[in-house]
């Protein structure tokens, strides 16, 4: 039952991803190709320089046009547009993103995939930590709010949620940096670690030291929302008949709240947590930029500034893959946690 559900979701996810990749390839085809052409010209120029200087001009011209033809054929530029799009999409799906025009990984490589792969874990580290703290704090506060719904604390913290609702996280980040890193110089203004990075255990301390301000900012904005949502979810459940029935059966309040209520609330809360994580995969480009946190988001920013199209495209593809993958995992987790889906319908 559950396996069928799993497979269905995974297949859908893959289908959507592949469709999107094709759409992106088509949409951005022109740009990508113009970059490709310039790259080809660069390569040819490089090769020409290595030629024997004694060659006659006509021979050089012939050589250039030969090489050009060869490369155009290699990159399928001589084929009709559909074929090019398809070929490019297949490349992407096999993780072959090509070479970056300007940017390089910290090891100096130009391979786009390597550049991206380096940045990915940093994004994951930062946002998973922040979301984890958000959820924990959100649970603590949200449960309290649900228990005393309509009370003073509930109302005031709800106002807090609304106040930060429209606040861009990156703006708060700017303020936090301005204050904590420039006015009162206790924290670094950004970056992953100090230069040069310390070794051994001190490396991790340094890493967390650098993570403090961004995580603080994310939590300041995020935890109100999660507390509010958790409060609503739990409150909704507490009004259900089965909670009253459990109390009637003499189940102690502690078990009703943390057992029956929380267990029923688990699917939507986990969904919420995963959704926030997903949103951060796509949405925190500027945030990372402000803090110079070298993750996927920051990579976008830099690749735009430097006009490095291959990196930009590769990043887009990877982000989309992560995003859709996240959605699939979300569905699977929800299905796992909610017996109504996991175990399915009725026997009769």
């Amino acid at each position, binding site marked *: 039952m559950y396996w069928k559900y799993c497979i269905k979701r995974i297949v859908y996810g893959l289908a959507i991803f592949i469709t999107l990749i094709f759409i992106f390839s088509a949409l951005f085809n022109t740009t990508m190709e113009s970059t490709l052409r310039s790259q080809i010209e660069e390569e040819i120029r490089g090769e020409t320089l290595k030629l024997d200087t004694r060659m006659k001009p006509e021979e050089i011209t012939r050589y250039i046009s030969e090489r050009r033809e060869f490369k155009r054929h290699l990159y399928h530029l001589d084929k009709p547009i559909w074929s090019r799009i398809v070929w490019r999409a297949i490349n992407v799906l096999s993780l072959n993103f090509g070479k970056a025009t300007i940017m390089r990984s910290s090891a100096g490589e130009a391979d786009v995939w390597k550049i991206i792969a380096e940045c990915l874990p940093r994004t994951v580290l930062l946002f998973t930590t922040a979301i984890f703290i958000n959820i924990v704090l959100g649970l603590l506060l949200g449960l309290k709010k649900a228990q005393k719904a309509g009370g003073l604390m509930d109302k005031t913290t709800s106002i807090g949620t609304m106040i930060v609702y429209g606040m861009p996280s990156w703006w708060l980040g700017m303020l936090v940096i301005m204050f904590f890193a420039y006015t009162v110089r206790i924290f670094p203004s950004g970056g992953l670690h100090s230069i040069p990075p310390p070794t051994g255990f001190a490396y991790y301390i340094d890493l967390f030291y650098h993570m403090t301000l961004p995580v603080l900012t994310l939590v300041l904005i995020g935890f109100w929302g999660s507390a509010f949502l958790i409060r609503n979810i739990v409150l909704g459940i507490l009004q*259900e*008949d*089965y*909670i*009253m*029935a*459990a*109390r*009637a*059966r*003499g*189940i*102690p309040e502690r*078990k009703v709240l943390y*057992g*029956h209520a929380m*267990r*029923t609330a*688990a699917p939507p809360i986990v969904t919420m947590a995963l959704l926030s994580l997903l949103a951060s995969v796509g949405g925190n480009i500027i945030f990372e930029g402000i803090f110079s946190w070298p993750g996927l988001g920051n990579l976008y920013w830099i690749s735009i500034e430097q006009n490095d199209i291959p990196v930009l495209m590769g990043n887009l593809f990877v982000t989309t893959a992560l995003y859709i993958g996240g959605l699939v995992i979300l569905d699977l987790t929800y299905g796992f*946690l*909610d*017996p*109504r889906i996991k*175990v*399915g*319908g*009725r*026997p*009769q």
Partner: protein
Amino acid sequence: MADTDNILKVENLKINFFTRKGKVYAVDDISFTLKKGETLGLVGESGCGKTTTVLGLMKMVPTPGEITGGRILIDGENIMPLSENQMREKVRWEKISMVFQGAMNCLTPVYTVGKQMMETIQEHKDIGNSEAKKKIINYLNLVGLPEEIIRRYPHELSGGMKQRVVIATALFLEPKIVICDEPTTALDVVVQAQIINLLKELKKRLGLSVIFITHDLATEAEVADRLLVMYAGKLAEIGTNEQIYGKGGPIHPYTEKLFNATPRLHEKVEELSFIPGTPPDLVDPPSGCRFHPRCLKVMERCKKDQPPLIEVEPEHWIACWRNTND
């Protein structure tokens, strides 16, 4: 009638809801008794206070409601002064339990049936897993369910099966009083009949004292011995089935209308009879007798004074001014 025969005695129970629109007099000064082994039917329209009353018996009136007066004696002990902890540990489910309505949503969807039943037993009695399991299976069989139900989740069961589970759960601690709140309402007729038969059998076998709430008079007639009619938070009539169902005897105008509203199978029906008007607003109830705006036999006195329950026959009380004059 000795008091020790009464397993439940309710005296002047008042339950109010404090809402933004005002104070709702949901249950306004109700007194009745339940004898050992008896089934007491509680009938009335939606919103007349039936469910609130029985929730009050378990001190589980939901906010913004509160019990504002009266005494409730279960087996001689007044439960009003008991704390929430004491209620939970000693009274609820051990002395008085409840079979919920339609078994729609009263089982937690994320726990198996077995886990919920196990949890209930072990919360009250200090017995091991295997012993508890034996007891659960015992009662499941009693209600006609196989053992494997234990491993099922609530959504996997049909309405009738869920209802049986709920009945089994209500009984296995062997409480003295069982409240059945419209247990057959949401079920189709065939299953309804099955459940009712089951309840009758269990009542006989286990010697239960039952309060049976329903708005269906036919069911009530089958299951109950005595009948309580409630209207707008007050008791309109108390009596045995014979006294009330039997033709010709004294009767409260509301009860009379209730009966007339059910068309008889073997009589010619010219027009469907109904009770004109709507149930009153309990924030600002009508003066005097609460039924007077809709009563066809209304007198001047009814508009001013609230009629008390008057014993018109032995064990038959009616709250109506008409019956004092007759």
